[in-house]
């Protein structure tokens, strides 16, 4: 059964073969069964036929993308292959030129514009960026409570309680009154995750959040994402070059090549049994 039927999408130009592997054009490699997408789990994100060009350069070429609720999807690929553009399109920061995006069954982008449903659903999408985006003139608490108080009208004590809980979740409760400049890179990213959690997202988009961190610190940050998935059921789409994390914690690995999704598979299938030469080259280059 195709998930797209259950979410009201028009028939999708996509088939799944007998072992559940998505087939799209010639780029997709035949892989072992992928039960996570075809089981009872509900689809959270569906993007169909996304296209985006910056000037003459096509960054997304008719991309179809799907994510289940509560899954960690790791997106890998070379710089400029379209990973971040896809994330930004899902986040509402970049509008695709063509295509359709559904989140939790709601059409949030169609006919080249955001729909009214996007306004209702956008609070369920959080994003953490590559650069440290904590506001440096505010302490950690103020960074966390600004949006709930100003956007949702939450009270001071309620916001503080929620901030304490979010910080505890990422292991940063003791830094609630620190300034961002007093924190290390990994600590800042954990606070940035906590800030995104304040709006209670169902989907957390993470754009190379560990690229500027040492491997042990990066592992701590990624461990936070794993806990969020396991304990809170938050779906995470993560652009990273950390193959160890991708192989251990990801439910799906999506490999972008030249603006297209070349591989969309389980980590085992993608890393151990995949015959896609581009992916092999990429993984070898990243590992060594």
């Amino acid at each position, binding site marked *: 059964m195709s998930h797209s039927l259950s979410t009201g999408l028009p028939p999708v130009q996509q088939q799944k073969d007998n072992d559940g592997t998505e087939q799209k054009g010639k780029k997709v490699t035949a892989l072992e069964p992928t039960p996570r997408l075809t089981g009872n789990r509900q689809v959270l994100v569906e993007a169909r036929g996304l296209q985006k060009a910056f000037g003459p350069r096509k960054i997304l070429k008719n991309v179809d993308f799907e994510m289940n609720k509560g899954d960690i999807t790791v997106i890998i690929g070379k710089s400029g292959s379209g990973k971040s553009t896809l994330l930004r399109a899902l986040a509402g920061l970049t509008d695709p030129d063509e295509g359709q995006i559904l989140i939790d069954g709601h059409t949030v982008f169609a006919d080249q514009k955001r729909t009214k449903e996007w306004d209702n659903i956008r609070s369920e999408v959080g994003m953490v960026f590559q650069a440290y985006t904590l506001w440096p003139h505010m302490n950690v608490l103020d960074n966390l409570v600004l949006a709930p108080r100003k*956007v949702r009208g939450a009270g001071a004590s309620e916001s503080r309680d929620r901030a304490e809980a979010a910080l505890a979740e990422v292991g940063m409760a003791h830094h609630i009154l620190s300034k961002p*400049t007093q924190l290390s890179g990994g600590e800042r990213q954990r606070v940035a995750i906590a800030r995104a959690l304040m709006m209670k997202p169902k989907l957390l988009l993470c754009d190379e959040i560990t690229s500027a961190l040492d491997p042990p610190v990066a592992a701590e940050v990624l461990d936070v994402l794993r806990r969020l998935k396991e304990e809170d059921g938050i779906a995470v789409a993560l652009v990273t070059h950390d193959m160890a994390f991708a192989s251990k914690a990801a439910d799906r690995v999506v490999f972008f090549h030249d603006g297209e999704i070349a591989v969309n598979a389980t980590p085992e299938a993608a890393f151990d049994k995949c015959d896609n030469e581009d992916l092999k080259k990429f993984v070898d280059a990243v590992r060594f």
Partner: protein
Amino acid sequence: MNYNFDWNVVANAFPAMMQGLGLTLQITVITIVISMILAVPLAVGRMSKIEVIRWAAQGYIEIFRCTPLLVQLFWIFYALPALTGVTLPGYASAVIALTANLTAFMAETYRSGFQSVPVEQVEAGRMLQLSRFQQLRYIIVPQALRQQLPVILSLNISLFKDTALVSTIAVSDLMFISNTISSQTYRALEVFTLAAGVYFAIAFPISLITSSIERRMQNSSGMGAPAPRRLASRMMPGTRPVVPA
């Protein structure tokens, strides 16, 4: 040099000059306050996605940036009445000309400050559903103001000195009073030395504060020499910052 100083002239002129200083400070404060407010929408307009607004804002800024302040002052005092039939008093003309001029420079300062805030910080605000106004109010403006504070203070010092130009349209500021006393007593050296001293006494502390803020910002951003302990040392202008290799 065979010049006999007569400091009695200065002592006699001092009260009148202080009265002039009061007007100078009044014009300065009014101009700064109004300019700092008006410059915000002008800076936002300068960055607008709507071309007409952007060009209009840019046009205003360039007109006031690329013409002498004295010409602007004369235009408002002498030329505007010919155009509109309304004659403005010297004081109002002075405030309008200085405000229009400072607003243009202040807007450019704000704009560069706004654009110095990393775009990811603004996008983080967007992701948290902050409105455009809330992004400006809580994320962009506080950081931009802090970043541009030394420039803003420098502009304000310049404006304080430039108020001397209003004496040319008979506004009885410190410079006008000094000039009048000098003409009456033929003691230009004493009178204008005192006037210069008064301007310096007001502007120099602000300049020291500006230097102090700059040094603090360099230190807080991890650049420059460590802050000296003594207050005087901390405020010393012209200290060469040491950028670590």
